[in-house]
């Protein structure tokens, strides 16, 4: 099976370390990372990932704005986006789906559920 590329976006080094470590335990997934929304848009353009996993509260550009921008651009509008955040309030979840995300999950994440979700977008 071809390798699938995942763009992980978070301003927290801890979150990136953990998500990367979880994802790369799956032999057919590879990761690229970004630490804010602006960088995420650039990497989504240049790397053409199969999936974006993105934090919401970040400097320079937050996850909602980055998600909207990706949906506006031809090259990135079809990439599935999962928002991963500590913010579990109804208003945030609604804003997440309005920005165009496909899924919204809250931290702290459960590794098993997280990988199942990735597999649902990328296949086994």
């Amino acid at each position, binding site marked *: 099976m071809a390798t699938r590329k995942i763009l992980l976006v978070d301003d927290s*080094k801890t979150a990136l370390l953990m998500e990367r470590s979880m994802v790369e335990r799956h032999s057919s997934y590879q990761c690229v990372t970004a630490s804010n929304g602006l960088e995420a848009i650039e990497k989504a353009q240049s790397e053409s990932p199969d999936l974006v996993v993105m934090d919401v509260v970040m400097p320079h550009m937050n996850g909602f704005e980055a998600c909207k921008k990706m949906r506006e651009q031809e090259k990135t509008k079809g990439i599935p986006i999962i928002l991963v955040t500590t913010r579990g309030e109804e208003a945030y979840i609604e804003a997440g789906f309005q920005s165009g995300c496909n899924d919204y999950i809250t931290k702290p994440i459960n590794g098993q559920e997280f990988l199942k979700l990735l597999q649902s977008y990328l296949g086994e």
Partner: protein
Amino acid sequence: MTKHTRIIETEFKRFLGETKETLRANPNGDRSRAPHLAEAVIEAATRRLRESMDTAETLEAIREIASNLLGCETMHLIRLDRETGVFQPFWSFGVEPANRCLINALEESASYCAALGSAYIARDLQDQSAGGPHTKVTVFVPVRCQSEVTAVLVLLQFLPQKLGFDKIDNEIFRILSEEAGSKLFCREAGSVSSNIPEQKS
């Protein structure tokens, strides 16, 4: 013990056994059921602390670990003066750093934690009547330098979606206890508090 707080457990292991009674089951499930993925969490916390270069970065690592891996965004690190047994504010996130009233309220439980030498969990009795998902817990984590408890990290408020604890949480408390202390308090004297970042929330 403070008026509004009582220790419901003295050891984390006992708390795990009582979780069903005190908190609703964690909707995200028990993370320790997948050992290889649990390793990823442990590895991330350990690496982040070990690779921190100075006091400011270690404190940022503590904040990130508490927020991303434990589900807590309000915390206080209080340092213990071994000679007087008095706690002094060292750093905080989400609360006023020099809030003496808060430190006074936490002091007795923090002393207990320091004497116990392991993390323990207390529940706020004011919230007990409400029950349900918003039951408030406070976690006390001893922070060690060369096996001696030199500070206590108080995790004050957990996110609403954090409704229970699993073995990984316990392991993260242990990592915070061992790794954070050696980074913060085992450096050369004088450099410890020279670059503590401004509190942000």
